[in-house]
């Protein structure tokens, strides 16, 4: 609790264009209209799941660059990550771009991990336009972390459904109307959970840790924000987060929401809700950005949560270490 982990971005860091691309189930969900591009099926016109996910990430990055009115050569750096071994989705997508690139891995927290790194680099003054992007695909993640997609083993209610999609944002020091005001870097929190089919329970303590430190470091109350959004705690993890926060004397129930709950409806076959790098990425860069653009909210704290496991560690009876990274967004008047 002592160590400061929140950095205020006083020099002016802004979000310019964002890009999102999703699969059919996400398009059919309640936020469908907020996504820039969608694909008819999970293959996204490609020959296998891995190339499909590359298509989604390529979509998101190119859309975000185009919407910013920029070209590849204007971008100083791309920070991107995904869930697949060795970050191959991001690595392979960046073959086709002549832009310096750093792959990052933070499991489902990758969206805010890359965003906060981009923000800090911009505020440092050496970079002008940095892209932050993340992707996930239900079938690539299922096959790597769980079972073959057509395997008939029953899934428990606590399980989350990996979002098929990708989100990208151009972070810049050029003034625009969405400002990034501060970031909080997460700590690895292991709450001694060992059920990989219930990542919400495992990640909730990491989310509360980051939110509490963010509020304490900046000495602000939760209602400073119109909204505090977590990445993919789902139905199960949300309840635990709210209870931990209450025990700490901080009530965020009225302003809290979870991307994993927002992206799908109750009747979609997603068990406890959405998860994956794309979950927080597409909700933040699609829906939340729209809420800011349309002045429905002014300040929002996005806290992306990640379960830092892999199947081998789970078979070795290890517990699940988790992390949560936070970025604060603020709508500002362009003329200021």
């Amino acid at each position: 609790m002592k160590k400061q982990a929140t950095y205020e971005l006083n020099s002016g860091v802004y979000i310019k264009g964002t890009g999102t691309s999703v699969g059919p189930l996400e398009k059919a969900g309640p936020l469908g209209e907020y996504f820039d591009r969608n694909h008819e099926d999970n293959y996204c016109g490609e020959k296998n799941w891995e190339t499909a996910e590359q298509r989604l990430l390529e979509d998101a990055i190119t859309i975000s660059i185009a919407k910013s009115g920029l070209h590849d050569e204007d971008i100083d750096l791309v920070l991107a990550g995904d869930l697949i071994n060795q970050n191959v989705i991001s690595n392979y997508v960046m073959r086709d771009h002549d832009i310096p690139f750093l792959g990052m891995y933070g499991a489902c927290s990758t969206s805010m991990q890359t965003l906060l790194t981009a923000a800090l680099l911009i505020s440092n003054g050496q970079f002008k336009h940095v892209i932050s992007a993340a992707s996930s695909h239900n079938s690539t993640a299922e096959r790597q972390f769980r079972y073959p997609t057509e395997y008939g083993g029953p899934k428990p209610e606590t399980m989350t459904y990996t979002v098929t999609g990708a989100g990208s944002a151009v972070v810049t020091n050029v003034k625009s109307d969405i400002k990034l005001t501060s970031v909080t870097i997460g700590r690895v929190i292991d709450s001694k959970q060992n059920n990989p089919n219930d990542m919400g329970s495992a990640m909730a303590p990491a989310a509360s840790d980051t939110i509490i430190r963010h509020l304490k470091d900046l000495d602000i109350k939760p209602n400073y924000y119109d909204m505090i959004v977590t990445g993919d705690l789902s139905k199960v993890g949300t309840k635990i987060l709210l209870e931990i926060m209450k025990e700490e004397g901080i009530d965020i129930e009225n302003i809290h929401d979870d991307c994993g709950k927002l992206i799908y409806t109750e009747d979609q076959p997603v068990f406890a809700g959405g998860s994956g790098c794309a979950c927080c990425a597409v909700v933040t860069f699609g829906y939340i950005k729209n809420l800011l653009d349309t002045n429905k909210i002014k300040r929002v704290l996005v806290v992306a949560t990640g379960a830092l496991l892999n199947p081998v560690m789970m078979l070795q009876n290890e517990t699940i270490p988790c992390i949560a990274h936070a970025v604060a967004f603020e709508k500002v008047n362009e003329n200021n």
Partner: protein
Amino acid sequence: MNKDYSKIINKNAVKPKYFKNSFLAFIVGGSVGVFGQALIDLYVNVFEVDKVNANSLMLVTLILIAALTTGLGIYDYFGQFGGAGAFVPITGFSNSMTSAALEGKSEGITLGIGASMFKLAGSVIVFGVVSAYILGLIRYIFFMS
């Protein structure tokens, strides 16, 4: 160094619906059994196959149906609904092999499909053989003399 969150997490733990799951498994698994028996009767009475061969034909038919429905993307819904009832019969075994084979398709025939097929079913074979060996040994020592 981490705080203990286990109390709150355990309090909010979602319990599996044991009764509903068991009931569905009983109905679905039982139905697969009834269907298998109907197939045996069909082969014996209509196609005039002898009983031993009818049994094998029934198993092969169930394996084929499960493999086809897996390929058509239907079996996983059946598995989600029927739970152990869809998993325990030979249909579950067939599904585990077909789904793994489908998944391996993009990596080629030998190292993709060939190497992946027994990824899930392999342990069933291993422990099937091991337990058959142990039981056979017990039978040999105690009941054969």
